């Protein structure tokens, strides 16, 4: 009888434990699928209103808490992007060109919390390591490769294949170490903005560029050549969050190091073949964020020190066929000197629901070297109406000065007003315009022929 009683008790305990485990697994280990469907359409305002952008993107996010101390996360983009580029009839048999699409793994990682010691978290796999306290534009955010596909989506990065370790000394101070075993370059703009970030080259008098091509020298895929490492100390003191960081990596936008000039006609037309490479650099970063008198404030700076001076050689031998020796011209593309990009910003929420955000930035993503850094002023004012269903941003954009000494001839204005409407809890429709104007040699001045209207529909699920 005693044995039967004991058996019953054991069965009850086992059933109870099993049922608790099953419940815990049901609650915690459930795979969560979420995502969004986005359509992004843009056309130029100038007649004949060419289509400037066509993107239909399905974002799928999978999130699973494997155990109480680990988690898996992935984010995949399945996209139909771009317009069919059809010249030859045989291309019509290639569905990938007739209806261009691509698949992109943005993130896919496993995260272990309290790994080896309760204060250590580890993240392994493709991941976004977002550094910096500024809004979207972050000079210290240099671990992930830039995703420059859409130049208007400032600050977008791709995932980096990395291992990231966060050690928490306490609730206020932590140290992060990141190692990226191989170099991943930035992908450049596409469509009408394809040449937006390509720096113009000053040609000798009488020469006209007719063709250009090039070759990219990727670093060798070994640990010493190709890897990137970063370290960040983060803390909280006197009401401010701050961090100090260091990155040993490569600039993700290639720089031209050797150009071969070849004449193509008798009128001074030339072809340039460029060799491009990615230079090594040290990046020292610092940032802080806090609130002063209700106003949110932040500052962020990154000092770049190239490992070596970058020399650009122009080989003009083909232009001087009678010369007994090769005719080359060396110029310094980038000095081995520190240059600092920085950003200062503030924001404020008004009682009537309006929000104001202002940032001053010195040095854009593609600008390198002390003398090449321009000044950017960005501002956005938005206000929500009708229980936050409607959001209007009548003021949005930036003002850029590329030469203060001749300000009237060296500036650019970007104006991006926006209206968005939450049609349902999960469906947001956004209508905006991007208008560019200015004078001088500045990236955004080059956009002035591309004023456009933009329509986006995002449905979250």
């Amino acid at each position, binding site marked *: 009888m005693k044995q039967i009683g004991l058996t019953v008790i054991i069965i009850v305990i086992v059933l109870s434990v099993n049922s608790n485990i099953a419940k815990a697994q049901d609650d915690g280990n459930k795979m969560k699928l*979420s995502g969004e469907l986005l359509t992004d359409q843009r056309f130029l305002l100038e007649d004949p209103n060419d289509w400037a952008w066509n993107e239909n993107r399905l974002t799928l996010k999978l999130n699973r808490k494997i155990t109480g101390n680990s988690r898996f996360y992935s984010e995949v983009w399945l996209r139909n992007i771009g317009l069919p580029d059809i010249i030859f009839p045989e291309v019509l048999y290639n569905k990938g060109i007739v209806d261009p699409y691509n698949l992109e793994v943005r993130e896919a990682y496993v995260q272990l919390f309290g790994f080896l010691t309760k204060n250590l978290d580890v993240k392994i796999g493709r991941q976004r390591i977002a550094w910096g306290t500024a809004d979207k534009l972050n000079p210290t955010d240099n671990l992930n490769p830039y995703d420059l596909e859409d130049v208007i989506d400032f600050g977008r990065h791709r995932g980096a294949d990395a291992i990231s370790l966060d050690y928490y000394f306490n609730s206020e101070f932590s140290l992060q170490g990141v190692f990226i075993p191989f170099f991943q370059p930035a992908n450049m703009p596409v469509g009408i903005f394809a040449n937006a970030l390509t720096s113009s080259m000053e040609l000798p008098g009488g020469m006209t560029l007719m063709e250009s091509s090039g070759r990219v020298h990727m670093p060798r895929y070994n640990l010493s050549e190709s890897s990137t490492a970063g370290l960040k100390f983060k803390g909280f003191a006197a009401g401010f969050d701050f961090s100090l960081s260091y990155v040993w990596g490569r600039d993700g936008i290639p720089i031209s190091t050797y150009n071969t000039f070849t004449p193509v006609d008798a009128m001074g037309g030339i072809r340039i073949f460029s060799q491009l490479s990615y230079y090594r650099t040290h990046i020292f970063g610092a940032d802080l964020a806090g609130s002063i008198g209700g106003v949110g404030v932040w500052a962020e700076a990154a000092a770049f020190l190239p490992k070596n001076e970058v020399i650009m050689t122009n080989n003009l031998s083909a232009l001087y066929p009678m010369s007994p020796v090769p005719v080359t011209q060396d110029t310094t593309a980038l000095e081995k000197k520190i240059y600092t990009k920085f950003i200062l910003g503030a924001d404020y929420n008004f009682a009537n629901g309006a929000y104001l955000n202002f940032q001053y930035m010195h040095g854009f993503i593609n600008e390198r070297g002390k003398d090449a850094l321009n000044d950017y002023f960005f501002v956005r004012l938005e206000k929500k109406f009708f229980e936050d269903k409607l959001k209007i941003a009548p003021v949005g954009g930036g003002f850029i000065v590329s030469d203060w000494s001749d300000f009237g001839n060296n500036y650019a204005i970007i104006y991006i007003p926006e209206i968005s409407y939450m049609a349902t809890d999960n469906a947001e429709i956004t209508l905006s315009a991007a208008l560019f104007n200015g004078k001088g040699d500045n990236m955004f001045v080059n956009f002035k022929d591309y004023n456009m209207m933009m329509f986006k529909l995002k449905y979250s699920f």
Partner: protein
Amino acid sequence: MRNLKSTIVSLFLLTGGMLSASAQDANTILKKIDDVMYSPKDMTGETKIILIDKAGKQKTREANFIQKGNDKRIFRFTTPASQAGIAVLSLPNDVMYLYLPAFGKERRISSSVKNQNFAGTDFSYDDMESKPYSEKYTPKLINTEEDIYILELTPKSPKSAYSRLIVKVHKTNYYPTYMEYYDRGNKKTKVAVYQFEKIGKYWNAKEIEMTDLQKNHKTKMLMSDVKYDTGLTDDEFTVRKLKQ
């Protein structure tokens, strides 16, 4: 004689009790409200937020929350999909962080956000704050009715969006049953109605209905699965946890 003595003692106690109740000053009442509202060491739960517009159309948001003391809290949305994963960490001294999963990092929020409504509801960030009333307001007892005390609360901070609050307080259990909010122009702008239930030894506001009188818009906040004193530590209220 023994009966008479007992009757006198009882009368004395009863009268004394009545005298003590009526003699309670506003500060004591407010302190007792704080004791009822903020005495748990920590709290976890789920909340369903129903937004009702003037046409009666409803929208629902759901979130879970953890809270320790009255100045540490993480509030994380679970639905709708467009807001799922968005989380707010509130810490002492108006330090607040917003986590937006799309950006993959936390963002410090300026304290001016306290002026604004929280996530489209009729509650401002300030209303959501669980700072004790006695720290934020100076009370005045303006009336006593059968079951309730009526207090007028004047904000101590000149930055408050309100000029005063009128609060009806349950006489026995000292939880608020009704609140009126007056703006800086002394115009009644919002009304909140509370329903409390006892969970263990604590009173829990299981439903709060806030009405914005100007917008004719209502927010119902329904609490469920509430647990008290589960032993949450300060480590749960960090940016590290916010991002998990």
